[in-house]
């Protein structure tokens, strides 16, 4: 197995961890961590698969550099929103009930 493929497989595991965390954890900071882990997994797959024959491929590497900057942009916005919610509601988590639940009133 090449180094690239090994890290791509690790990326698959990270994607699964991130996905489960994003869907299951109620705390917003954890959700943000989970999103970053999911993203890192996808980046590993992108570069790892591209380099599975052992060579170096600058194209997915450049894409991941782009992706890292996009990820911090999203993270910063998410954190700013989460802090705002904390200041307004005293909690850093989303209300449990789905929006359809309170559809009739409010």
């Amino acid at each position, binding site marked *: 197995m090449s180094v690239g*493929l090994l890290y*791509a*497989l690790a990326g*698959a*595991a990270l*994607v*699964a*961890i991130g*996905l*489960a965390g994003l*869907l*299951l954890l*109620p705390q917003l900071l954890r959700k943000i961590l989970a999103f970053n882990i999911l993203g890192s997994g996808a980046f590993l*797959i992108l570069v790892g*698969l591209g380099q*599975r024959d052992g*060579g*170096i*491929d*600058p*194209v997915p*590497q*450049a*894409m991941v*550099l*782009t992706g*890292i*900057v*996009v990820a*911090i*942009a*999203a993270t*910063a*916005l998410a*954190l*700013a*929103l989460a*802090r*705002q919610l904390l*200041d307004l509601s005293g909690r850093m988590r989303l209300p*449990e009930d789905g929006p359809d639940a309170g559809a009739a009133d409010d």
Partner: protein
Amino acid sequence: MSRAVAALVVLLAAGLAAALGLAMLDLPEPAVRLPARVAAKLGDSGVDHPVTAVLLNFRAYDTLLEVAVLLLALVGVLALARPHAARAAAPAHPLLQTLARLVAPLMVLVAGYLLWIGAHAPGGAFQAGAVLAAAGVLLRLAGLLPAWAQPGLLLRGGLALGLLVFVAVAVAVLGQGSLLQYPPAAAGGLILLIEAGLTLSIGLTLAGLYLAGTEVEP
């Protein structure tokens, strides 16, 4: 969330991982080989580091949009930052202040080096900008820099400079070709110009994400 739903989600995630793994172990030979094409055109790109060539020439359009994403995130963070008066810098340990005073100028030098070396070796505007931003965060932690929720005109100009230079170069070459099609002779210079603007703006923006975001306390 109920236990059954949680179990279902875990199952879904595990299933995805398994499917990804299976798919990866059964891949065909790729029909297209981009590394060879990058190597073939590297001489025309204006730089000799392949990743920089992809980032600022072959796929420079991605990078342009990405810079917009970064600035947009700061705009979003600023929209959320309450216009409290900038919090007075918290008193920091004098040792930290001395350290910050010593290290910050050094970091600016490192950023300059990374920017310059990016044409030939690992490095470039994003890494250089990140180091600049780190200097800003350090100064902030040392209490030497105020938080800012409402940047003034000069600062807004600095934040926007990188993207504006990038867009200007992108459309300036439209007369002789496509968007972002640098004339081969000028490619190296144009890329350096764009990267210089980007380093400043990325440094300010990344620092701003921290400085504007960390200022909510009344």
